[in-house]
């Protein structure tokens, strides 16, 4: 091939002028960083694991960065990591008001999947699932991706038609999908009540075999460590209190650790995106709602897949610690409180017992809540905001965890090039005013109904 072949990811060029800037070699890989391997594990075992280096630094903020990311959860850390890795942008800070992964990254139920019907969602989440598949190797950190399958139960002939339609749409988009009969499911999951007289009779199910779970905390830690190793400053206990804008462009952020100048500001604060955007004078098509989850006491392995039911509003999997992790619907009223109310817990437990009667012997060990950006069409907003230098990845509704790698990758691309990638081009803020909503469930602008 004549000339220089640009770096590619699939058919997409990712080489650009930003990438050609030479990063400061002193910031490339801090001396404390260490490659995790069987050898480092053995070496540290000899010294009783007392000499492992810190996985990332805790630097004081510099007065100016090329880009600042607000939010030290999975999405913000992933954005910073891919800014450094894909675009050579390493003079970047991640600002976190609490501690890393202390928000929704540490509160979700760890499910990953790409079983979407609409094309923009299917392409986006499939890209994310492909990144999950290679993430542990990429980050040199075991994120414990477990392709245990995600099974959506079907409870009526109408449900069956919908599941077939979605499965076919997935296959047309190159995504794995398989319809399972009731008998196949009954053999695979003996605890599940597949009898004809069950409270919610099971007619079959749509399985995505490559779906599954990922250890949520490890995602934050793995991205943080890998971003830090590439020179990104991760600054915890640093809350953004204002966004400074001059002549229609971002010039920096006010924080609890002082003013930090930057011309590129990315928001990765789902649950609180409305508040941060409000600091820039924007009102978003988002409401904040609380989603609860709960775990049982830990037991030996009883469930080796993820089971969900749209009709019953319920999903369940078993963690590696043995707890059954389950959840259901939102609490259905605006909330920033990170805790919910008992009626939803009661509903989730009721649904669990209807599907898995034997789980009635377990105790609820712990319940918690996380606050979600609920958008007006149930799909995220990943891209530019109408102020120069301001970007966001948010509006995840209650499905943000599985999006983490793609969200970070595409947010980074949009920030570095000041234009969206084809994979996030549809997820604009402007789509609402333009009538281009991406409404997977088709319920209209009722944010708590998605």
């Amino acid at each position, binding site marked *: 091939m004549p000339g220089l072949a640009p770096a590619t990811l699939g058919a997409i060029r990712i080489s650009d002028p930003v990438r050609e800037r030479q990063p400061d070699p002193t910031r490339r890989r801090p001396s404390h960083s260490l490659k995790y391997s069987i050898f480092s594990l053995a070496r540290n075992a000899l010294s009783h694991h007392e000499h492992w280096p810190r996985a990332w630094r805790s630097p004081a903020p510099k007065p100016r960065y090329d880009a600042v990311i607000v939010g030290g959860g999975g999405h913000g850390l992933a954005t910073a990591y891919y800014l450094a890795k894909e675009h050579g942008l390493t003079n970047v800070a991640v600002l976190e008001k609490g501690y890393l992964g202390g928000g929704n990254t540490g509160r979700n139920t760890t499910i990953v999947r790409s079983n979407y019907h609409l094309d923009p969602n299917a392409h986006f989440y499939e890209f994310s699932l492909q990144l999950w598949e290679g993430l542990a190797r990429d980050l040199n950190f075991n994120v414990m991706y477990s392709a245990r399958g995600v099974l959506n139960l079907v409870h009526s002939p109408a449900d069956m038609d919908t599941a077939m339609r979605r499965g076919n749409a997935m296959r047309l988009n190159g995504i794995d999908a398989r319809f399972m009969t009731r008998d196949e499911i009954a053999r695979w999951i003996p605890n599940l009540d597949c009898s004809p007289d069950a409270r919610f009779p099971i007619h079959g199910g749509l399985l995505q075999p490559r779906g599954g779970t990922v250890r949520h905390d490890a995602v934050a830690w793995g991205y943080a460590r890998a971003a830090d190793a590439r020179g990104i400053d991760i600054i915890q206990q640093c809350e953004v209190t204002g966004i400074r804008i001059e002549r229609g462009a971002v010039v920096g952020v006010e924080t609890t650790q002082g003013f930090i100048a930057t011309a590129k500001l990315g928001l990765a604060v789902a649950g609180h995106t409305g*508040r941060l955007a409000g600091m820039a004078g924007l009102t978003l098509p988002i*409401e*904040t709602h609380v989603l609860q989850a709960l775990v049982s006491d830990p037991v030996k392995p009883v469930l080796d897949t993820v089971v969900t039911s749209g009709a019953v509003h319920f999903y369940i999997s078993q963690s590696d610690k043995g707890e059954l992790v389950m959840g259901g619907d939102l609490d259905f009223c605006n909330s920033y409180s990170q805790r919910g109310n008992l009626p939803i817990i009661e509903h989730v437990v009721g649904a669990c017992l209807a599907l898995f009667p034997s789980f009635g012997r377990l105790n609820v060990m712990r319940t918690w809540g996380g606050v979600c950006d609920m958008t*007006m069409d149930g799909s995220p907003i990943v891209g530019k905001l109408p102020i120069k230098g301001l970007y966001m990845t948010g509006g995840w509704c209650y499905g943000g965890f599985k999006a983490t790698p793609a969200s970070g990758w595409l947010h980074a691309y949009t920030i570095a090039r000041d234009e969206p990638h084809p994979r996030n081009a549809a997820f604009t803020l402007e789509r*609402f*005013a333009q009538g281009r909503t991406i409404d997977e469930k088709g319920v209209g602008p009722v944010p*708590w109904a998605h």
Partner: protein
Amino acid sequence: MLLIPCPWCGPRAQIEFTYGGDAAVQRPSPEAPEAVWVAYVYLRDNPAGPHAELWLHSAGCRRWFKVRRDTRTHDILGSASPGAALPGAPT
């Protein structure tokens, strides 16, 4: 469990009610410019703090009313019939 004060039935458990969303949203006139309609359909203030909202006493008197509730604590600050003013900050 929220204890929601229905203006007609008094305090009742949350499970008797259905949420109706932001009570500050006002339907524009049919002649209003498109941007006003877009804001009405899609944009929400989404405050972290006191929030004026609509509730329906669906398993009770089946009437709509307004509640002011703090979205950070779930404390209910007051309720009123749809035409009346809520106690506390103006809606």
